[in-house]
Protein backbone atom coordinates (compact mmCIF):
# COMPACT_ATOMS: atom_id res chain seq x y z
CA UNK A 1 0.00 0.00 0.00
CA UNK A 2 0.98 3.61 -0.36
CA UNK A 3 -0.16 6.29 1.98
CA UNK A 4 -2.33 9.10 0.82
CA UNK A 5 -3.88 10.45 3.95
CA UNK A 6 -3.56 13.70 5.82
CA UNK A 7 -2.61 11.61 8.88
CA UNK A 8 0.70 10.83 7.22
CA UNK A 9 1.85 14.41 7.31
CA UNK A 10 0.48 15.10 10.78
CA UNK A 11 2.35 12.10 12.11
CA UNK A 12 5.61 13.25 10.53
CA UNK A 13 5.52 16.79 11.80
CA UNK A 14 4.52 15.77 15.31
CA UNK A 15 7.00 13.12 16.12
CA UNK A 16 10.02 12.91 13.86
CA UNK A 17 8.84 9.83 12.02
CA UNK A 18 6.24 9.25 9.33
CA UNK A 19 3.15 7.08 9.49
CA UNK A 20 4.72 4.84 6.86
CA UNK A 21 7.77 4.36 9.09
CA UNK A 22 5.56 3.57 12.08
CA UNK A 23 3.71 0.94 10.05
CA UNK A 24 6.90 -0.62 8.73
CA UNK A 25 8.27 -0.90 12.26
CA UNK A 26 4.99 -2.41 13.50
CA UNK A 27 5.01 -4.89 10.62
CA UNK A 28 8.63 -5.82 11.31
CA UNK A 29 7.73 -6.71 14.91
CA UNK A 30 5.21 -9.27 13.62
CA UNK A 31 8.18 -11.30 12.30
CA UNK A 32 9.78 -13.55 14.93
CA UNK A 33 13.31 -14.87 14.77
CA UNK A 34 13.71 -18.01 12.70
CA UNK A 35 10.37 -17.66 10.96
CA UNK A 36 9.72 -18.26 7.27
CA UNK A 37 8.09 -15.15 5.86
CA UNK A 38 6.13 -14.58 2.64
CA UNK A 39 7.31 -11.03 2.21
CA UNK A 40 5.01 -9.64 -0.48
CA UNK A 41 5.25 -6.12 -1.78
CA UNK A 42 5.65 -2.51 -0.74
CA UNK A 43 5.91 -1.73 3.00
CA UNK A 44 6.50 -5.38 4.01
CA UNK A 45 9.60 -5.49 1.76
CA UNK A 46 11.07 -2.91 4.14
CA UNK A 47 9.63 -4.55 7.25
CA UNK A 48 11.51 -7.77 6.44
CA UNK A 49 14.78 -5.83 6.16
CA UNK A 50 14.18 -4.21 9.55
CA UNK A 51 13.35 -7.52 11.22
CA UNK A 52 16.38 -9.28 9.73
CA UNK A 53 18.75 -6.56 10.84
CA UNK A 54 17.39 -6.05 14.34
CA UNK A 55 15.42 -8.81 16.04
CA UNK A 56 14.94 -11.71 13.61
CA UNK A 57 18.36 -12.38 12.06
CA UNK A 58 17.47 -16.03 11.28
CA UNK A 59 14.18 -15.21 9.48
CA UNK A 60 13.92 -16.48 5.89
CA UNK A 61 12.20 -14.50 3.12
CA UNK A 62 10.17 -16.29 0.44
CA UNK A 63 9.05 -14.54 -2.75
CA UNK A 64 6.45 -16.03 -5.07
CA UNK A 65 8.36 -15.24 -8.27
CA UNK A 66 10.62 -18.13 -7.18
CA UNK A 67 13.17 -16.51 -4.87
CA UNK A 68 14.22 -17.47 -1.33
CA UNK A 69 16.57 -15.24 0.68
CA UNK A 70 18.35 -15.87 3.95
CA UNK A 71 20.36 -12.66 3.54
CA UNK A 72 18.11 -9.75 2.61
CA UNK A 73 18.73 -7.78 -0.57
CA UNK A 74 21.41 -5.13 -0.17
CA UNK A 75 19.33 -2.23 -1.46
CA UNK A 76 15.86 -0.76 -1.90
CA UNK A 77 13.39 -2.89 -3.87
CA UNK A 78 10.41 -1.80 -5.91
CA UNK A 79 9.44 -5.38 -6.84
CA UNK A 80 10.48 -8.85 -5.73
CA UNK A 81 12.12 -9.51 -9.13
CA UNK A 82 14.39 -6.45 -8.97
CA UNK A 83 17.97 -7.54 -9.73
CA UNK A 84 19.25 -6.84 -6.17
CA UNK A 85 16.71 -9.38 -4.84
CA UNK A 86 17.95 -12.12 -7.19
CA UNK A 87 21.70 -11.63 -6.90
CA UNK A 88 22.98 -13.41 -3.80
CA UNK A 89 19.66 -15.18 -3.27
CA UNK A 90 19.58 -18.49 -1.45
CA UNK A 91 17.45 -19.90 -4.28
CA UNK A 92 16.14 -18.71 -7.63
CA UNK A 93 13.78 -20.77 -9.74
CA UNK A 94 10.13 -21.60 -10.19
CA UNK A 95 7.07 -20.27 -8.40
CA UNK A 96 5.89 -23.80 -7.57
CA UNK A 97 9.16 -24.46 -5.69
CA UNK A 98 8.23 -21.68 -3.28
CA UNK A 99 4.45 -22.16 -3.26
CA UNK A 100 5.02 -25.83 -2.45
CA UNK A 101 6.53 -24.82 0.91
CA UNK A 102 3.59 -22.49 1.51
CA UNK A 103 1.05 -25.24 0.78
CA UNK A 104 2.89 -27.69 3.06
CA UNK A 105 2.23 -25.27 5.91
CA UNK A 106 5.88 -24.30 6.41
CA UNK A 107 5.38 -20.55 6.09
CA UNK A 108 4.85 -18.86 9.44
CA UNK A 109 3.67 -15.42 8.36
CA UNK A 110 2.61 -13.72 5.14
CA UNK A 111 1.95 -10.03 4.52
CA UNK A 112 -1.09 -8.84 2.59
CA UNK A 113 -2.67 -5.62 1.43
CA UNK A 114 -6.18 -5.08 0.10
CA UNK A 115 -8.73 -2.45 -0.85
CA UNK A 116 -11.26 -3.78 1.68
CA UNK A 117 -11.17 -5.87 4.84
CA UNK A 118 -14.08 -6.96 7.03
CA UNK A 119 -14.51 -7.74 10.73
CA UNK A 120 -13.47 -11.37 10.15
CA UNK A 121 -10.32 -10.42 8.24
CA UNK A 122 -11.60 -11.40 4.78
CA UNK A 123 -9.92 -9.32 2.08
CA UNK A 124 -11.17 -7.97 -1.23
CA UNK A 125 -8.68 -6.91 -3.89
CA UNK A 126 -10.74 -7.93 -6.96
CA UNK A 127 -14.13 -6.22 -7.35
CA UNK A 128 -14.83 -3.16 -5.21
CA UNK A 129 -17.71 -0.71 -5.03
CA UNK A 130 -17.49 3.02 -4.59
CA UNK A 131 -20.38 5.49 -4.63
CA UNK A 132 -22.61 2.74 -5.99
CA UNK A 133 -20.26 2.03 -8.91
CA UNK A 134 -18.37 -1.21 -9.46
CA UNK A 135 -14.60 -0.70 -9.31
CA UNK A 136 -12.17 -3.19 -10.81
CA UNK A 137 -9.12 -3.80 -8.62
CA UNK A 138 -5.92 -5.59 -9.69
CA UNK A 139 -6.89 -9.01 -8.28
CA UNK A 140 -5.34 -11.60 -6.01
CA UNK A 141 -1.79 -12.00 -7.23
CA UNK A 142 -0.49 -14.38 -4.58
CA UNK A 143 -2.62 -12.91 -1.78
CA UNK A 144 -5.36 -15.54 -1.98
CA UNK A 145 -2.77 -18.31 -1.79
CA UNK A 146 -1.03 -16.76 1.22
CA UNK A 147 -4.35 -16.12 3.02
CA UNK A 148 -5.37 -19.77 2.56
CA UNK A 149 -2.04 -21.45 3.20
CA UNK A 150 0.20 -19.45 5.60
CA UNK A 151 0.03 -20.17 9.34
CA UNK A 152 -0.82 -16.54 10.00
CA UNK A 153 -1.17 -13.34 7.98
CA UNK A 154 -0.69 -9.66 8.70
CA UNK A 155 -2.72 -7.12 6.71
CA UNK A 156 -1.58 -3.54 6.01
CA UNK A 157 -4.31 -1.06 5.07
CA UNK A 158 -5.31 2.58 4.95
CA UNK A 159 -7.94 3.09 7.68
CA UNK A 160 -11.04 4.47 5.99
CA UNK A 161 -14.70 3.59 6.57
CA UNK A 162 -15.19 2.40 2.99
CA UNK A 163 -12.19 0.06 3.35
CA UNK A 164 -12.98 -1.45 6.77
CA UNK A 165 -16.45 -2.83 6.11
CA UNK A 166 -18.87 -5.16 7.88
CA UNK A 167 -18.66 -7.72 5.06
CA UNK A 168 -16.52 -7.54 1.92
CA UNK A 169 -18.42 -7.77 -1.36
CA UNK A 170 -15.94 -10.27 -2.80
CA UNK A 171 -13.61 -12.57 -0.88
CA UNK A 172 -10.29 -12.60 -2.72
CA UNK A 173 -8.35 -13.77 0.33
CA UNK A 174 -10.25 -15.61 3.07
CA UNK A 175 -9.76 -14.61 6.68
CA UNK A 176 -12.04 -16.18 9.29
CA UNK A 177 -14.99 -16.29 6.86
CA UNK A 178 -18.10 -15.86 8.97
CA UNK A 179 -16.20 -16.57 12.20
CA UNK A 180 -16.01 -19.51 14.58
CA UNK A 181 -14.53 -22.69 13.10
CA UNK A 182 -15.25 -21.55 9.52
CA UNK A 183 -11.68 -22.08 8.29
CA UNK A 184 -11.44 -25.74 9.28
CA UNK A 185 -15.02 -26.37 8.10
CA UNK A 186 -14.20 -25.22 4.57
CA UNK A 187 -10.97 -27.21 4.47
CA UNK A 188 -8.26 -24.76 5.56
CA UNK A 189 -5.84 -25.66 8.35
CA UNK A 190 -7.22 -25.19 11.85
CA UNK A 191 -5.32 -22.50 13.73
CA UNK A 192 -4.34 -20.57 10.59
CA UNK A 193 -5.65 -17.12 9.68
CA UNK A 194 -5.11 -13.39 10.11
CA UNK A 195 -3.17 -12.29 13.21
CA UNK A 196 -3.36 -8.51 12.82
CA UNK A 197 -4.58 -5.67 10.65
CA UNK A 198 -2.08 -2.79 10.79
CA UNK A 199 -3.90 0.31 9.63
CA UNK A 200 -2.96 3.96 9.34
CA UNK A 201 -4.70 4.53 12.71
CA UNK A 202 -4.03 1.50 14.85
CA UNK A 203 -3.63 -2.25 15.17
CA UNK A 204 -6.61 -4.64 15.10
CA UNK A 205 -6.30 -8.21 16.37
CA UNK A 206 -8.74 -11.12 16.49
CA UNK A 207 -10.47 -12.92 19.34
CA UNK A 208 -10.96 -16.71 19.42
CA UNK A 209 -14.13 -16.42 17.31
CA UNK A 210 -12.25 -14.63 14.55
CA UNK A 211 -13.80 -11.22 15.24
CA UNK A 212 -11.53 -8.15 15.03
CA UNK A 213 -11.04 -5.71 17.91
CA UNK A 214 -8.90 -2.61 18.36
CA UNK A 215 -5.72 -3.62 20.20
CA UNK A 216 -3.74 -0.37 19.97
CA UNK A 217 -3.96 3.12 18.53
CA UNK A 218 -1.06 4.91 16.87
CA UNK A 219 0.46 7.88 18.73
CA UNK A 220 -1.83 10.90 18.54
CA UNK A 221 -4.87 8.98 17.28
CA UNK A 222 -8.06 9.02 19.40
CA UNK A 223 -10.06 5.84 19.90
CA UNK A 224 -13.24 7.61 18.77
CA UNK A 225 -11.54 8.55 15.51
CA UNK A 226 -10.72 4.90 14.83
CA UNK A 227 -14.22 3.70 15.67
CA UNK A 228 -15.76 6.43 13.49
CA UNK A 229 -13.61 5.38 10.55
CA UNK A 230 -14.53 1.70 10.83
CA UNK A 231 -17.52 0.37 8.92
CA UNK A 232 -18.71 -1.93 11.69
CA UNK A 233 -19.16 -1.48 15.44
CA UNK A 234 -15.52 -1.98 16.39
CA UNK A 235 -14.86 -3.41 19.83
CA UNK A 236 -12.00 -1.89 21.83
CA UNK A 237 -9.67 -3.97 23.99
CA UNK A 238 -9.97 -3.39 27.75
CA UNK A 239 -6.17 -3.11 27.87
CA UNK A 240 -5.95 -0.88 24.77
CA UNK A 241 -2.42 0.38 24.31
CA UNK A 242 -0.54 2.79 22.08
CA UNK A 243 1.37 1.36 19.10
CA UNK A 244 5.04 1.80 20.03
CA UNK A 245 6.81 4.51 18.04
CA UNK A 246 9.61 3.25 15.79
CA UNK A 247 12.92 3.10 17.63
CA UNK A 248 16.01 4.96 16.46
CA UNK A 249 17.42 1.62 15.29
CA UNK A 250 14.28 0.82 13.29
CA UNK A 251 14.24 4.28 11.71
CA UNK A 252 17.92 3.89 10.86
CA UNK A 253 17.31 0.70 8.88
CA UNK A 254 14.19 2.04 7.16
CA UNK A 255 16.00 5.20 6.04
CA UNK A 256 19.06 3.27 4.95
CA UNK A 257 16.99 1.18 2.54
CA UNK A 258 14.44 3.81 1.54
CA UNK A 259 16.50 7.02 1.60
CA UNK A 260 14.14 8.82 -0.78
CA UNK A 261 11.09 7.81 1.24
CA UNK A 262 9.46 6.18 -1.79
CA UNK A 263 7.47 3.78 0.39
CA UNK A 264 7.40 5.59 3.72
CA UNK A 265 7.15 9.29 2.93
CA UNK A 266 4.36 9.38 0.35
CA UNK A 267 2.59 12.73 0.22
Amino acid at each position, binding site marked *: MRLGEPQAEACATRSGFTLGELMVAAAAREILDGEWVFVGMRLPLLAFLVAKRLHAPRAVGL*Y*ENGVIRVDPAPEMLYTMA*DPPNQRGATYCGEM*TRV*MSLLQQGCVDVGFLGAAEVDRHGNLNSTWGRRDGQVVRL*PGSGGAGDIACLAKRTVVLMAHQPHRLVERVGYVTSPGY*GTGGDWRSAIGLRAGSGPAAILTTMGVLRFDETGDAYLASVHPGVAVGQVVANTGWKLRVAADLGETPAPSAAELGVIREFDPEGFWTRQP
Partner: protein
Amino acid sequence: MAIEQNSKLLTMGEAIARYVPSGSSVLMGAAMEQLIPFAAGHELIRQDRRDLTLIGPISDILFDQLIGAGCVARVEAAWVGNVSAGVGYNLRRATEQGVPRPVEMIDYTNFTVALALHAAALGVPFLPTRSTLGSDVLARNPHLVEFRSPVGGEKLVAVEALAPDVAILHVQRADAQGNAHAWGGLGVQIDGARAARRVILVAEEIVEPEVIASDPNRTEIPGMLVSAVVHEPWGAHPSPVQGYYGRDHAFFHEYHERSRKREDFENWLREWVLGVENRAGYLERLGAERRGTLGVREHAWSAAVDFGY
Protein backbone atom coordinates in the same frame (compact mmCIF):
# COMPACT_ATOMS: atom_id res chain seq x y z
CA MET B 1 27.66 -15.31 -36.24
CA ALA B 2 27.07 -18.16 -38.66
CA ILE B 3 23.40 -19.10 -38.66
CA GLU B 4 22.54 -22.73 -39.28
CA GLN B 5 20.26 -23.47 -42.17
CA ASN B 6 17.51 -24.79 -39.94
CA SER B 7 17.69 -21.75 -37.67
CA LYS B 8 14.41 -20.66 -36.10
CA LEU B 9 15.49 -17.02 -36.02
CA LEU B 10 12.79 -14.60 -37.12
CA THR B 11 12.23 -10.90 -36.64
CA MET B 12 9.60 -10.02 -34.04
CA GLY B 13 7.30 -8.86 -36.85
CA GLU B 14 7.64 -12.20 -38.64
CA ALA B 15 7.17 -14.27 -35.48
CA ILE B 16 3.97 -12.46 -34.46
CA ALA B 17 2.62 -12.50 -38.03
CA ARG B 18 3.25 -16.22 -38.37
CA TYR B 19 2.31 -17.60 -34.95
CA VAL B 20 -0.13 -15.26 -33.16
CA PRO B 21 -3.34 -14.74 -35.12
CA SER B 22 -6.25 -12.75 -33.70
CA GLY B 23 -8.26 -14.85 -31.26
CA SER B 24 -5.19 -16.61 -29.83
CA SER B 25 -4.68 -17.30 -26.15
CA VAL B 26 -1.24 -15.95 -25.24
CA LEU B 27 0.88 -16.53 -22.14
CA MET B 28 3.15 -13.56 -21.31
CA GLY B 29 4.85 -12.27 -18.17
CA ALA B 30 5.42 -15.85 -17.03
CA ALA B 31 8.51 -14.91 -14.97
CA MET B 32 6.52 -12.31 -12.96
CA GLU B 33 8.16 -8.88 -12.71
CA GLN B 34 11.30 -9.68 -14.71
CA LEU B 35 11.67 -10.89 -18.32
CA ILE B 36 8.31 -9.46 -19.42
CA PRO B 37 8.12 -9.59 -23.26
CA PHE B 38 7.13 -5.95 -23.83
CA ALA B 39 8.60 -5.88 -27.37
CA ALA B 40 6.33 -8.77 -28.38
CA GLY B 41 3.30 -7.16 -26.76
CA HIS B 42 3.92 -3.92 -28.64
CA GLU B 43 4.20 -5.84 -31.92
CA LEU B 44 0.81 -7.46 -31.20
CA ILE B 45 -0.60 -3.93 -30.92
CA ARG B 46 1.09 -2.72 -34.13
CA GLN B 47 -0.19 -5.73 -36.05
CA ASP B 48 -3.67 -4.94 -34.72
CA ARG B 49 -4.41 -8.31 -33.15
CA ARG B 50 -7.97 -8.59 -31.81
CA ASP B 51 -9.89 -10.83 -29.42
CA LEU B 52 -6.82 -12.16 -27.66
CA THR B 53 -7.03 -14.08 -24.38
CA LEU B 54 -4.16 -13.00 -22.12
CA ILE B 55 -2.83 -15.60 -19.71
CA GLY B 56 -0.30 -14.99 -16.94
CA PRO B 57 0.15 -14.77 -13.20
CA ILE B 58 0.84 -11.03 -13.34
CA SER B 59 2.17 -9.00 -16.22
CA ASP B 60 2.96 -5.64 -14.70
CA ILE B 61 1.80 -2.95 -17.17
CA LEU B 62 1.95 -5.06 -20.35
CA PHE B 63 -1.58 -6.47 -20.03
CA ASP B 64 -2.91 -2.99 -19.23
CA GLN B 65 -1.37 -1.68 -22.46
CA LEU B 66 -2.83 -4.48 -24.61
CA ILE B 67 -6.26 -3.97 -23.00
CA GLY B 68 -6.06 -0.23 -23.66
CA ALA B 69 -5.09 -0.85 -27.28
CA GLY B 70 -8.27 -2.90 -27.76
CA CYS B 71 -6.50 -6.20 -28.50
CA VAL B 72 -8.04 -8.20 -25.66
CA ALA B 73 -11.35 -10.05 -25.22
CA ARG B 74 -10.51 -12.03 -22.09
CA VAL B 75 -7.93 -12.12 -19.30
CA GLU B 76 -7.14 -15.29 -17.33
CA ALA B 77 -4.70 -14.03 -14.72
CA ALA B 78 -4.08 -13.50 -11.02
CA TRP B 79 -3.34 -9.79 -11.15
CA VAL B 80 -3.44 -6.91 -13.65
CA GLY B 81 -2.08 -3.48 -12.75
CA ASN B 82 1.12 -1.53 -12.25
CA VAL B 83 3.26 -3.30 -9.64
CA SER B 84 5.13 -0.34 -8.18
CA ALA B 85 2.50 2.34 -8.89
CA GLY B 86 -0.92 0.77 -8.30
CA VAL B 87 -3.97 0.16 -10.46
CA GLY B 88 -4.17 -0.37 -14.21
CA TYR B 89 -6.36 2.39 -15.58
CA ASN B 90 -6.99 0.67 -18.92
CA LEU B 91 -8.15 -2.45 -17.08
CA ARG B 92 -10.55 -0.29 -15.08
CA ARG B 93 -11.93 1.50 -18.15
CA ALA B 94 -12.43 -1.78 -20.02
CA THR B 95 -14.10 -3.64 -17.15
CA GLU B 96 -16.12 -0.75 -15.71
CA GLN B 97 -17.11 1.15 -18.89
CA GLY B 98 -16.34 -1.17 -21.81
CA VAL B 99 -13.73 1.32 -23.12
CA PRO B 100 -12.24 0.72 -25.67
CA ARG B 101 -14.10 -2.60 -25.48
CA PRO B 102 -15.42 -4.90 -22.74
CA VAL B 103 -13.00 -7.48 -21.36
CA GLU B 104 -14.02 -10.68 -19.61
CA MET B 105 -12.06 -11.39 -16.42
CA ILE B 106 -11.42 -14.95 -15.24
CA ASP B 107 -9.66 -14.46 -11.92
CA TYR B 108 -7.03 -16.84 -10.57
CA THR B 109 -4.40 -16.62 -7.85
CA ASN B 110 -0.70 -16.86 -8.72
CA PHE B 111 -0.48 -20.43 -7.47
CA THR B 112 -3.59 -21.60 -9.33
CA VAL B 113 -2.23 -20.11 -12.59
CA ALA B 114 0.98 -22.06 -11.92
CA LEU B 115 -0.97 -25.28 -11.25
CA ALA B 116 -3.17 -24.82 -14.34
CA LEU B 117 -0.06 -24.57 -16.52
CA HIS B 118 1.68 -27.36 -14.60
CA ALA B 119 -1.31 -29.65 -15.20
CA ALA B 120 -1.16 -28.93 -18.94
CA ALA B 121 2.61 -29.45 -18.87
CA LEU B 122 2.09 -32.83 -17.15
CA GLY B 123 -0.67 -33.82 -19.56
CA VAL B 124 -3.31 -34.33 -16.86
CA PRO B 125 -6.78 -32.71 -16.75
CA PHE B 126 -6.31 -31.02 -13.36
CA LEU B 127 -4.14 -30.75 -10.26
CA PRO B 128 -5.41 -30.50 -6.69
CA THR B 129 -4.70 -27.67 -4.26
CA ARG B 130 -5.87 -26.34 -0.91
CA SER B 131 -5.59 -22.76 -2.16
CA THR B 132 -8.71 -20.66 -2.89
CA LEU B 133 -10.95 -22.74 -0.56
CA GLY B 134 -13.56 -20.39 0.86
CA SER B 135 -12.86 -17.61 -1.66
CA ASP B 136 -14.92 -15.99 -4.40
CA VAL B 137 -12.02 -16.70 -6.79
CA LEU B 138 -13.06 -20.35 -6.43
CA ALA B 139 -16.78 -19.52 -6.52
CA ARG B 140 -16.58 -17.52 -9.76
CA ASN B 141 -13.85 -19.18 -11.83
CA PRO B 142 -15.36 -22.14 -13.76
CA HIS B 143 -11.92 -23.74 -14.08
CA LEU B 144 -11.59 -24.16 -10.29
CA VAL B 145 -13.82 -26.92 -8.91
CA GLU B 146 -14.10 -28.05 -5.30
CA PHE B 147 -14.05 -31.81 -4.74
CA ARG B 148 -13.48 -34.44 -2.06
CA SER B 149 -10.10 -36.12 -2.26
CA PRO B 150 -10.48 -39.80 -3.18
CA VAL B 151 -7.57 -40.33 -0.78
CA GLY B 152 -8.38 -39.22 2.76
CA GLY B 153 -11.60 -37.37 1.93
CA GLU B 154 -10.32 -33.81 2.42
CA LYS B 155 -11.87 -30.83 0.65
CA LEU B 156 -9.63 -29.77 -2.23
CA VAL B 157 -9.81 -27.64 -5.36
CA ALA B 158 -9.27 -29.11 -8.84
CA VAL B 159 -7.39 -26.62 -11.01
CA GLU B 160 -8.20 -27.37 -14.64
CA ALA B 161 -5.27 -27.67 -17.04
CA LEU B 162 -4.69 -24.54 -19.12
CA ALA B 163 -2.83 -24.85 -22.43
CA PRO B 164 -2.19 -21.47 -24.09
CA ASP B 165 -2.09 -21.36 -27.89
CA VAL B 166 1.21 -19.49 -27.66
CA ALA B 167 3.70 -18.77 -24.87
CA ILE B 168 5.90 -15.72 -25.51
CA LEU B 169 8.88 -16.08 -23.19
CA HIS B 170 11.80 -13.69 -22.73
CA VAL B 171 15.16 -15.17 -21.71
CA GLN B 172 18.72 -13.99 -21.28
CA ARG B 173 20.28 -16.17 -23.98
CA ALA B 174 19.43 -18.88 -26.48
CA ASP B 175 20.89 -20.57 -29.51
CA ALA B 176 19.29 -20.38 -32.95
CA GLN B 177 17.33 -23.56 -32.22
CA GLY B 178 15.70 -22.04 -29.14
CA ASN B 179 17.62 -23.91 -26.47
CA ALA B 180 17.44 -21.29 -23.76
CA HIS B 181 19.22 -20.28 -20.58
CA ALA B 182 17.33 -18.11 -18.12
CA TRP B 183 18.15 -17.12 -14.55
CA GLY B 184 16.72 -15.24 -11.60
CA GLY B 185 13.15 -15.85 -10.46
CA LEU B 186 11.43 -17.76 -13.26
CA GLY B 187 7.82 -17.77 -12.04
CA VAL B 188 5.87 -20.15 -14.29
CA GLN B 189 8.13 -19.87 -17.32
CA ILE B 190 9.30 -23.51 -17.35
CA ASP B 191 5.79 -24.96 -17.12
CA GLY B 192 4.54 -22.32 -19.54
CA ALA B 193 6.93 -23.53 -22.23
CA ARG B 194 5.69 -27.11 -21.77
CA ALA B 195 1.99 -26.23 -21.46
CA ALA B 196 1.68 -24.06 -24.59
CA ARG B 197 1.00 -25.38 -28.07
CA ARG B 198 3.71 -23.09 -29.46
CA VAL B 199 6.56 -21.10 -27.96
CA ILE B 200 8.00 -17.84 -29.27
CA LEU B 201 11.31 -17.31 -27.52
CA VAL B 202 12.71 -13.79 -27.22
CA ALA B 203 16.38 -13.56 -26.26
CA GLU B 204 18.72 -10.77 -25.22
CA GLU B 205 21.58 -12.66 -26.86
CA ILE B 206 21.90 -15.40 -29.47
CA VAL B 207 24.86 -17.62 -28.63
CA GLU B 208 26.52 -20.66 -30.17
CA PRO B 209 24.88 -23.99 -29.27
CA GLU B 210 28.02 -24.96 -27.33
CA VAL B 211 27.38 -22.18 -24.81
CA ILE B 212 23.93 -23.54 -23.98
CA ALA B 213 25.08 -27.18 -24.04
CA SER B 214 27.88 -26.35 -21.58
CA ASP B 215 25.34 -26.00 -18.75
CA PRO B 216 22.28 -28.19 -19.42
CA ASN B 217 20.86 -27.63 -15.93
CA ARG B 218 20.38 -23.99 -16.86
CA THR B 219 18.53 -24.93 -20.08
CA GLU B 220 15.06 -24.06 -18.83
CA ILE B 221 13.51 -24.40 -22.27
CA PRO B 222 14.69 -27.09 -24.71
CA GLY B 223 14.67 -25.93 -28.34
CA MET B 224 12.44 -28.75 -29.51
CA LEU B 225 9.51 -26.92 -27.84
CA VAL B 226 10.26 -23.65 -29.62
CA SER B 227 8.71 -22.47 -32.90
CA ALA B 228 10.50 -19.16 -33.32
CA VAL B 229 13.52 -17.42 -31.82
CA VAL B 230 13.62 -13.63 -31.86
CA HIS B 231 16.83 -11.77 -31.07
CA GLU B 232 15.58 -8.62 -29.35
CA PRO B 233 18.09 -6.86 -27.07
CA TRP B 234 16.30 -4.68 -24.46
CA GLY B 235 13.10 -6.43 -25.48
CA ALA B 236 11.87 -6.67 -21.89
CA HIS B 237 12.32 -2.97 -21.01
CA PRO B 238 10.99 -1.46 -18.72
CA SER B 239 11.03 -4.78 -16.81
CA PRO B 240 14.45 -6.02 -15.66
CA VAL B 241 16.63 -8.78 -17.08
CA GLN B 242 19.15 -10.08 -14.54
CA GLY B 243 22.69 -9.53 -15.81
CA TYR B 244 21.57 -7.24 -18.66
CA TYR B 245 19.59 -4.27 -17.32
CA GLY B 246 17.65 -3.14 -14.27
CA ARG B 247 14.02 -2.17 -13.86
CA ASP B 248 13.15 1.28 -15.22
CA HIS B 249 11.02 2.28 -12.24
CA ALA B 250 10.44 5.80 -13.59
CA PHE B 251 8.95 4.38 -16.79
CA PHE B 252 6.29 2.52 -14.79
CA HIS B 253 5.44 5.64 -12.83
CA GLU B 254 5.30 7.80 -15.95
CA TYR B 255 2.97 5.24 -17.51
CA HIS B 256 0.78 5.38 -14.40
CA GLU B 257 0.31 9.13 -14.80
CA ARG B 258 -0.07 8.99 -18.56
CA SER B 259 -2.66 6.21 -18.57
CA ARG B 260 -4.96 7.83 -15.99
CA LYS B 261 -7.01 9.48 -18.75
CA ARG B 262 -7.93 7.72 -22.00
CA GLU B 263 -6.73 10.61 -24.17
CA ASP B 264 -3.34 10.68 -22.45
CA PHE B 265 -3.01 6.93 -22.87
CA GLU B 266 -3.72 7.25 -26.60
CA ASN B 267 -0.87 9.76 -26.82
CA TRP B 268 1.38 7.43 -24.84
CA LEU B 269 0.50 4.58 -27.21
CA ARG B 270 1.28 6.68 -30.28
CA GLU B 271 4.57 7.79 -28.78
CA TRP B 272 5.92 4.44 -27.61
CA VAL B 273 4.16 1.81 -29.75
CA LEU B 274 2.21 2.92 -32.82
CA GLY B 275 4.60 5.73 -33.72
CA VAL B 276 7.68 3.50 -33.82
CA GLU B 277 8.27 0.86 -36.47
CA ASN B 278 9.85 -1.78 -34.25
CA ARG B 279 11.93 -2.24 -31.10
CA ALA B 280 14.88 -0.42 -32.64
CA GLY B 281 12.68 2.65 -33.01
CA TYR B 282 11.52 2.30 -29.40
CA LEU B 283 15.11 2.11 -28.17
CA GLU B 284 16.04 5.17 -30.19
CA ARG B 285 13.20 7.04 -28.49
CA LEU B 286 14.33 5.74 -25.11
CA GLY B 287 17.82 7.05 -25.79
CA ALA B 288 21.32 5.81 -25.07
CA GLU B 289 21.62 7.93 -21.95
CA ARG B 290 18.60 6.41 -20.23
CA ARG B 291 19.72 2.91 -21.21
CA GLY B 292 23.13 3.73 -19.78
CA THR B 293 21.62 4.42 -16.37
CA LEU B 294 19.89 1.01 -16.40
CA GLY B 295 22.85 -1.12 -17.46
CA VAL B 296 24.76 -3.47 -15.18
CA ARG B 297 26.88 -1.44 -12.74
CA GLU B 298 28.76 -4.36 -11.25
CA HIS B 299 28.94 -7.83 -12.80
CA ALA B 300 28.45 -10.88 -10.58
CA TRP B 301 29.39 -13.98 -12.54
CA SER B 302 28.45 -17.38 -11.19
CA ALA B 303 31.21 -19.95 -10.74
CA ALA B 304 31.55 -22.43 -13.59
CA VAL B 305 30.44 -26.03 -13.01
CA ASP B 306 32.38 -29.02 -14.31
CA PHE B 307 30.42 -31.38 -16.57
CA GLY B 308 33.57 -33.38 -17.24
CA TYR B 309 33.85 -37.10 -16.76
